[in-house]
Structure formats: C-alpha cells, structure tokens
C-alpha cells in the first residue's frame, strides 16, 4: 500500500484519483517488487516515511502527475513557442553569425606574416610596452611552431567578436543601471543567474533554437556568459564616481549628457576596463565548452583529446589556451594601467 493512499481515502478523493483509470490496468515493476517483498501489507514505517513529492503522490493517486511530466511539459512548452521565438531571434542574431564567419575567415585566411605583425601593432598601440609586444610574438610563435596556429587564430577571432559585442551592449546596460535603482534591482538577479548557471546549460535551449552548424549558436552562449562582468563593473564604476565631483558638475550647470560623457564615464573608465578584462577571460573559458556545439579553435582539440583519449593532443591544446589567456590578460591589464596612469590616483 502506497504511503499516502489512506490520506486520499480519508479526504474522499479516491474517486477523483482513479477517475482516469481503466480497470485493473497494468502493474508497474515497482508494484510487483513491492508485492513479492511482503512489505506491501505493512507500508513504510515512520522512520522512512517518504516526502510527499510528486512521484510518491502519483503512486497513491494517479491523477497527480509524476515529476517527469513537469520537465516534459517544459520541453513541450518550449517546442511550442520555438517557431515564434526563432522568427524573432533568428533575424536579430543573424549579424552575429556573419560577424563570426567573417572574422574567422579574416583571421585564418590572411597570411601569418600579416596577422602576427598586426597583432603586435595592436598590442603596441594599447599598451606602449615593447616587452608585451615581444611576448605576443613569442607566444604566437610557439603556438604556430607546434602547428596550432590556425586553431589559436580561430579561438582569438571568436573572442574578439564576442568580447566586442559584450562591450557594445554591456556598457550601455551598465550605464542605464547606474542611473536607475529600479533597473538595477531588475538586472542584478538576471546577472546573478547568468553567472551561476552552469555553462553547459546555456547550450541546451540554444541547440533547440538554432541549427548546430550556425556560428551564432556558440556566439550567443559565449556572450550571455561573458557579458556579466562588464555590465556589473560599468554600473559599479559609475556609481563609485566621487559624489563631490558630481556635485561640482551640477553646480556649474552641466547637463546630464555633459556629466555622463565628461565626468562619469571617464572617471569610471578604470572599472569599466577591469570589466572588459574579465569579460575577455570569461569568453575564453566559454569558448572551450562551446566547441561541443561546433565552435572551432583550440577547444576542438581539447575535445578530441577527451573523446578519443589522445592525451597529448588535449594537453597541448589546453596549454595553448593558457598561453592565449595570459596574452589577453596581460595586454588588457597593461592598457588598463595606462588609463589609470593618464588619470590620477584618486
């Protein structure tokens, strides 16, 4: 006898519970085992009395759905709105696919003797440090020497595009949050959720929405995961701007716009740049996971290492990712330090 059967009986709901049943019906394996066990007559003791969960209640009263029905409902619900969702999201995110495809094409099809100097030039422009320029040359040189050049460029291309879009959307969202407490209260839980959701979970609904061959599938996953720090730190940075300076700006009659672009953003820039640095690091973490859904690059090699137990391939690709991470981190940190210095130590 199931644990809660008597409860439904005393409540007089027996008729409702078994309304949908057709006679004796089939017996489940569990019931059979219970029958042969001999414990059937006594039922569970007080010590191991089950929690009234959906599955337990379902056993006592078939009219209550088991919990698998709930997840199934979610699936069916999602599949039902999938068409409509695709209709909206597909064209909106199409530019992302184009950008990723073009960037991948540019980074891999341009000869190495152009790409490497261009990367070194960019490093020089943002950091003004010969040491870092040499570091870029050496690390990419090592990766190219062990034949990981193309994979590394693919990974870099994806990160460039995704980090750019994160900044493009994240900074304005952060600014809007800093100006409205209500918006901040709404956005912060969303950011918390994006940050704590296991990265694999991002991929599940996206696989249903888009075909696996589309670059935007992994693009969206990376952006959702990596946009959080830039939004947070932009909001924080603007809120932390010295109240006295803001008051002075008001006292001299600055408009909201003059204040934002002339005072708040410049003074929040160190924090915003710290957010950009974190965003780049997080997109690098996600780009490996995204190789599960056809993101090219070093992640594919790591995946190959796991799938076919090619230890060396996986380790070397992992090492390559570490090099890229150090590279991106040092370059963004150095440019951040340069911004800090050109301002003041407040």
């Amino acid at each position, binding site marked *: 006898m199931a644990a809660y059967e008597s409860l439904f009986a005393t409540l007089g709901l027996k008729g409702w519970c078994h309304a949908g049943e057709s006679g004796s019906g089939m017996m489940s394996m569990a019931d059979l085992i219970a029958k042969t066990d001999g414990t059937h007559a006594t039922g569970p003791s007080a010590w191991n009395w089950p929690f009234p969960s959906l599955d337990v209640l379902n056993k006592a009263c078939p009219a209550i759905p088991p919990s698998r029905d709930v997840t199934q409902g979610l699936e069916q619900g999602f599949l039902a709105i999938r068409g409509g969702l695709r209709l909206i999201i597909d064209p909106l995110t199409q530019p992302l696919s184009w950008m990723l495809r073009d960037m991948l094409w540019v980074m891999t099809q341009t000869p190495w003797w152009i790409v490497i100097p261009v990367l070194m030039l960019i490093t020089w422009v943002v950091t003004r440090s010969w040491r870092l320029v040499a570091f870029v040359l050496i690390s990419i040189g090592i990766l190219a020497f062990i034949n990981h050049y193309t994979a590394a460029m693919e990974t870099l291309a994806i990160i460039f595009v995704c980090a750019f879009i994160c900044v493009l959307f994240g900074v304005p969202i952060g600014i809007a949050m800093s100006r409205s407490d209500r918006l901040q209260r709404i956005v912060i839980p969303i950011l918390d959720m994006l940050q704590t959701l296991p990265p694999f979970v991002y991929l599940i609904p996206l696989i249903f929405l888009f075909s696996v061959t589309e670059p935007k599938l992994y693009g969206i996953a990376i952006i959702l995961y990596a946009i959080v720090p830039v939004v947070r730190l932009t909001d924080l940075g603007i809120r932390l701007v010295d109240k006295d300076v803001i008051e*002075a700006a008001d*006292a001299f009659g600055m408009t909201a716009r003059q204040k934002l672009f002339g005072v708040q953003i410049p003074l929040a820039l160190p924090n915003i740049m710290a957010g950009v640095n974190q965003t780049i690091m997080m997109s690098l973490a996600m780009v490996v996971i995204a190789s599960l859904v056809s993101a090219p690059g070093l992640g594919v090699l790591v995946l190959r290492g796991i799938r076919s137990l090619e230890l060396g391939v996986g380790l070397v690709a992992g090492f390559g990712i570490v090099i890229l991470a150090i590279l991106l981190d040092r370059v963004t940190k150095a440019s951040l330090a340069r911004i800090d210095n050109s301002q003041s130590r*407040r």
Partner: protein
Amino acid sequence: MTKQEKDIKVSIRHLYKIFGDDPQAAMEDVKAGMGKPELLETRQHVLGLNDINTDMRRGEITVIMGLSGSGKSTLIRHLNRLIEPTAGEVLVDGENILDWNETRLRKLRREQMSMVFQKFALLPHRTVLENAGMALATRGISKADFETEANKWLDRVGLGGYGGQYPHQLSGGMQQRVGIARALTSNSDIMLMDEAFSALDPLIRTDMQDLLLELQGELHKTIIFITHDLDEALKLADHLVILNDGRVVQQGEPQHILLNPADPYIEDFVADINRARVLRVRSVMTEGAPEGDISGEVDENDNLESVIAKAEGALDRHFRVMREGAPVGSLAMPAIMRALVPARSSGETAKR
C-alpha cells in the same frame, strides 16, 4: 525701492528644509510650532533648516557660521538649488529662483553663481587649465577660446605655469587655488564658498583668506562663505549669520555680535577668541571731539591690540580716532579694557 533694498543681491525668505519621507506633512507640524527634537521623535523627520531669513548684499562677504550639523552646508546648497527646499523663497536679484525651470536654473548656475568646495572637487582627469575653464567649457566655449581667460585667473591666484599639470600633482592649497580660479573664470557675480578653506592646514588657510580678501578688494563679488571657524568668520565677514540647529541665532555686523551676543550659545562661541585682535577701534570709540589730553592718534580700523601696544599698557592714555585723516571720535583706555571682557547676553544677565 530704497537704496538699501536695491543693494540686496540674494535673499532668503522663510526657508524650511525637512529631511524624511513625507516632508510636506511634517511641514504642517513645524508650522504649528513643533521643534526639531519632537519632530524627530514623533515623525522621524529631521528639521534641517527652520525659518531662515537673511539678506546678502551685493559686493559683500556674507559668512554663514555654525558647527557641524547646524545646517550651513544645506543652506548654501539651496542658493543654487542643489537641494530643493521644503518651503520658502530664494530671491536672486529679486526673482524667486524656485519658480525657475531647468533651463533657467542651469543658466543661473553657469553664468551667475559659481561654487568652491571643501574637498576641491576638481575633475581628476582634466588638466589644471581645463579645470579652471570648466564653467566656460560647460557653456560650450572651446578650449582655445577659454584658455586666455583661464590662464589670467590662474596667474591671479598664483598658479601661473601650472596649467598643464593634473590636480593630483598639486598640493591641497594649490588645488583649492584651482578651485577658486575655476569660480573666478566663470565671471559670475555670486560666489558660493562651502567651507572652502577648512581642509587646509592653518598657515595655508591664512594665506588663502588673505588672497580672498585681496581679490574681493578688486572684484567686489557677492560672496557667501560657509565656515565653522569663528576666527575665519570674523576675519572675512562683512555680514555674519550664525546658525544653530537649523535656526539663525544672530546675524549682523561681526563686531556688533561680538560686543552684544544675543544668547548664551553665541556667548560660548565667542568666549575663546582673542578679542583684542578682532575688535576694531570704531566699535568701541566714543563719537564726537576728544576732550582733555590726547596722547596720540589711531585709525578707526586699528585693532585694540595695536592700541594697547601704542599705549604701552598704561591705563590713563586717551586717543584721537581718525577716519581717512579726519578726527571722528575719541578712545580712552578704560573703554578698551571693558571691551576685552566678554559681554553677557541680555538673557543671561536677566537670569542673574
């Protein structure tokens, strides 16, 4: 309009400020006579300013003095509406600025009123020159156009040649000079100074006070100066307003307040200052032609300390008081001695 009314640049009428969730409801209680402690207890609202009435005259330095929590910083922020009052009027050139819309208010802040802050509040990412020209840049004037004006005032406050530096490269006193140059470059006729010298060390503070008096001698701006330092207040003020717990306790000419404190609070306040150095001959002299032996001449703006020095401490001396070279009255040493003893307020005397 009489001449005196015409000279009033800024005036505050029945100004109240209540901090809390529902200031208007609390306002009813205050109008009905509820005091600050009761209001805090019954409604959890803070009475920041309580029926402030004062006039600030054109070309004068009005000093608003009070201890921390007396509402002086709140009061000065009402003059350019950085804080909105709960009730009352703020008149600038006879017009109530509380009726003004945002555009007009911004014009006031850009062109008519400038402000100097206790913590300098310079823009750390702009050079000294750009900071000095901030008011003009805000009006949309390009750097090339405000450069001359900004450099002129930087020179005037003693910072010639520092234009290319950043604020953090300067000392506190120099940063505040930039703050003053910024206020002067805006060419506004009203300057609000919120504890402008309080963050500086004593010697530099004295320098800055002298600089301000020197500039004021040339420029005749309407300056509203906030301080918690009585010596500073007495040194700078043409008109002194003393605040306590959001109320004006006494206002008037500083010498007059010193000689006739209105209540025990002011008495305590003025008890510790060096009266001989602050009081001037004109405040204690007897008008009319001097009689008897004259042992010397003093100017009406000399302080008593210098007169005592001149008399070499002897009590039987008698001086002729001169104003711009003409005799206007006389001063006997006993009068000086009497003035050096702190006066009791009328309230206190009655109690004894």
